[in-house]
């Protein structure tokens, strides 16, 4: 890494960095945490406020339950194992208050309300078990013991004890607090507009920002749904696209009304239908504050307009699973944009077209869950350590021939 002296001190006294992380969402935060733990000098830049992008607009499910065996499941398994250890280490380092993330290993429950999806769900769970997932089929009537208010129309149910949840903004800000405590720097309201390359015209030697240039040895593109735009600006286009999602929040309910994260198994029949205009699947979970979150819909594009038919479909799906929710007021609706790639796997690693440009993005509806392993994997690759998950399926180069 070569940094030109005269290019230092551009951003209000911020000198050069080993790594500039672009984006302060959960993924950028996790990367910065893993990098600083390895002693890297990190500068995190975000054009908006801290952790206020997609990370502040979704839910905090950490799931293995919905994933078919494959690289995505392997990353999820690694990440779900990693989260509690990472949070314990942060508690140690920062003290309990600043590391509080409302982490809860509450387990997931996937239910089918008709026979075809029941059959599919059982087969799906069997395949997951073969891949090492703890997927416990519940006997007829047993689901009611797990979720007393669940519809009696359940035909099959699988319990996933490994599923957990946390609060994404707390998690991201805790990770960034650790970054700061280790001497990392964080600046918001600074847009990264492009990269600077060295004499070879390829290798990154700095970034251009709305406040000047910052010399650096590496840049991490953790721009979430805007990662495609940043990649293009960096001269290495990447097919990361947004899919809008909406969530409903109810008034607080007595604890125990909804105990797990519960969702409909209808998904087993149709996985990966990314191109449909709009899809809705019911996911119901309670937060520590007692409110119930009801997700979630999918619609292609950056259009944030609220649509009443989407709210209606979400409500209908939730009421179908938990009839008791029918009388509960919905207090709030919000939404964000999931960053997805054509093969629905994230991109983690260095871009062969632009040495020094790294990507950590494209996590779609699972960026919170996958962040812990993503940050670690990126830092391992950056430091030349043996990676704890196979990085091959997540390489940036896999889209090289795709037209976009």
């Amino acid at each position, binding site marked *: 890494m070569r940094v030109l002296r005269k290019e230092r001190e551009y951003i209000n006294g911020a000198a050069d960095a080993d790594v500039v992380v672009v984006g302060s969402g959960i993924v950028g935060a996790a990367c910065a945490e893993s990098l600083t733990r390895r002693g890297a000098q990190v500068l995190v830049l975000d054009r908006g*406020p801290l952790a206020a992008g997609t990370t502040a607009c979704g839910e905090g499910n950490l799931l293995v339950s919905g994933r078919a065996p494959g690289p995505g499941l392997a990353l999820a398994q690694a990440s779900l194992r990693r989260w509690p250890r990472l949070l314990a280490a942060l508690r140690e380092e920062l003290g309990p208050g600043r590391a509080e993330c409302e982490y809860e290993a509450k387990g997931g429950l996937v239910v089918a309300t008709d026979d075809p999806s029941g059959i599919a769900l059982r087969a799906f769970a069997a395949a997951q078990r073969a891949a090492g997932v703890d997927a416990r089929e519940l006997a007829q009537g047993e689901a009611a013991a797990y979720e007393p208010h669940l519809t009696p129309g359940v035909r099959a149910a699988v319990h996933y004890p490994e599923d957990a949840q946390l609060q994404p903004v707390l998690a991201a800000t805790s990770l960034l607090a650790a970054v700061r405590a280790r001497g990392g720097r964080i600046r*918001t309201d600074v847009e990264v507009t492009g990269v600077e390359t060295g004499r070879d015209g390829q290798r990154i030697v700095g970034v251009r920002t709305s406040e000047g240039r910052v010399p650096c040895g590496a840049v991490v593109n953790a721009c979430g749904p805007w990662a495609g735009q940043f990649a293009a600006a960096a001269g290495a286009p990447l097919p990361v696209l947004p899919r809008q999602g909406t969530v409903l929040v109810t008034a607080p309910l007595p604890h125990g009304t909804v105990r797990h994260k519960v969702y409909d198994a209808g*998904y087993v029949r149709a996985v990966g239908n990314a191109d449909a205009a709009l899809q809705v699947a019911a996911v119901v979970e309670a937060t520590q504050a007692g409110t119930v979150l009801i997700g979630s819909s999918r619609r292609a594009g950056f259009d944030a*307009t609220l649509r009443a038919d989407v709210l209606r*479909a979400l*409500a209908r799906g*939730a009421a179908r699973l938990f009839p008791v929710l029918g009388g509960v007021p919905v207090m709030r609706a919000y939404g964000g944009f999931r960053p997805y790639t054509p093969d629905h796997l994230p991109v983690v690693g260095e871009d062969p077209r632009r040495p020094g440009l790294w990507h950590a993005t494209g996590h779609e509806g699972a960026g919170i869950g996958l962040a812990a392993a993503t940050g670690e994997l990126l830092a391992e690759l950056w430091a030349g350590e043996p990676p704890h998950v196979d990085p091959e399926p997540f390489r940036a180069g896999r889209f090289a021939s795709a037209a976009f």
Partner: protein
Amino acid sequence: MSGPSLIPSPLVVVVGAGPAGSRAALSAARCGARVVLVDSSERVGGRYGRRPAAVTDGEVTSVTHPLEVAVAVQHRIEHLAGATVWALEPGPAPGRHLVHLQQGPADDRGRPVRTLTADALVLCTGAFDRTLPFPGWELPGVVTAGAAQALAEGQRTAVGARAVVSGTGPFLLPVALSLLDVGAHVLGVYEAGNPARWLRSPAAALRDGGPGRLAELGSYAAGLARGRVPYRTRHAVVAAHGRDRVEAVTVARLDAGWHPVPGSEQRLAPVDAVCVGYGFTPQLELPLAAGCAVRDGHVVIDGRQATTVPGVYAAGELTGIAGAPAAAAEGELAGLSAVADLAERQWVAAAGGTAPGAGLTPPPPARLAAVAARVRSGQRFGQALARAHPVPGGWRGWLREDTLVCRCEEVSYGELRDAVVARGADGMRALKLACRAGLGACQGRVCGRNTAELAAAFLGAPVADPHAMDRRPLAHPVRLGDLAGPPDGAGDVTSDPPVSPDTR
């Protein structure tokens, strides 16, 4: 409907039946538009409409607001009483909007959900009292000045036997009078500002407020004097005390920045009601849902009440606080402008051969100009009022570590500071998730603005998204079952098979 046209006149939907909304409905209807006037309360008149109540033989009867009669006799207006707009959606064509509403008492189950398609939308949702936090403000007995006055004038009931009134603005005077009127002992009116400033531009007050305004203020002052109510400027209630409810207050003298002057604190007891009002906060969720630009807490409008979104107009306290007459003038202009634009749009459509004009009689330019002049004078009055009653930041010094800033979620000043300073949450959206301020029952209506100001003070710079807490795409709670509709699944969003939840 006038004229033989088979195509119905365009539909103007007016949300809010206060002085602004009622006037907008009347002026649009009189120009030939069909109007649906929606308000969550039962009566026409808005907040001001609560005032006229009379007692005959010990019975409280509410007096009919003059606007109520006018609206009732105008056959082109359909008044949807007790109807709350819970969401807005653009469509089905540019300039048109879907207005989702629900009718019936707020707590009922199975309130029907209905959708109107507005050819033009006039938003007149008014404003609500602003409260500033201080130690003890969460105690029962501490209420907004508006609530105290509504109770006094609507129900002929005093919030307490020994009350104090604290805040800023001319509105404190009628509140105190209404309390006296229903037999409360008012221990004092504490005006945190220095309204002598008002007199620095008496010419403006006279011109824009009209002599009636000054006379009104004068009569309030006289009323207070008769009731022997002490009126102190540069003073405020900076703490309330009590175990289960308010029993005493601390009043302090304030400097020009509203910092308490050390040593000036005085304890008043016994006190069983504290009425607080620091001006008003516009009810912004519908304009924000429609995508209207908002500046300094008010909806941005042009000289004809049009917002930055085609087909959407705003009037009344959404655009500035200047009292009922000014709101009514804005409403009238908004209704006229909506019709004028619709007539133009129709003409364009007719030229394209799709829809002939249908019974609209757009207002003559002279009429528009006359109303616009009244609106401008009202707006000058509002600006003078705002200048005379600023809310400087010294109130932050009233707070202690454990003072609640968000009452619904019981978030303390210390917790808020931690979220900003220790966690680095420098935007409102992340901030509310980092400390829960604004996530409770009122959805940030009470604490949103205060939280944004506190955060800005910690950061030493304004927050990037000050209106994030005013953004409530779901403008009002709706029961999940009502939202879901009948359980037959009819009208499902899509026949696409559902997909996995957020796992990929």
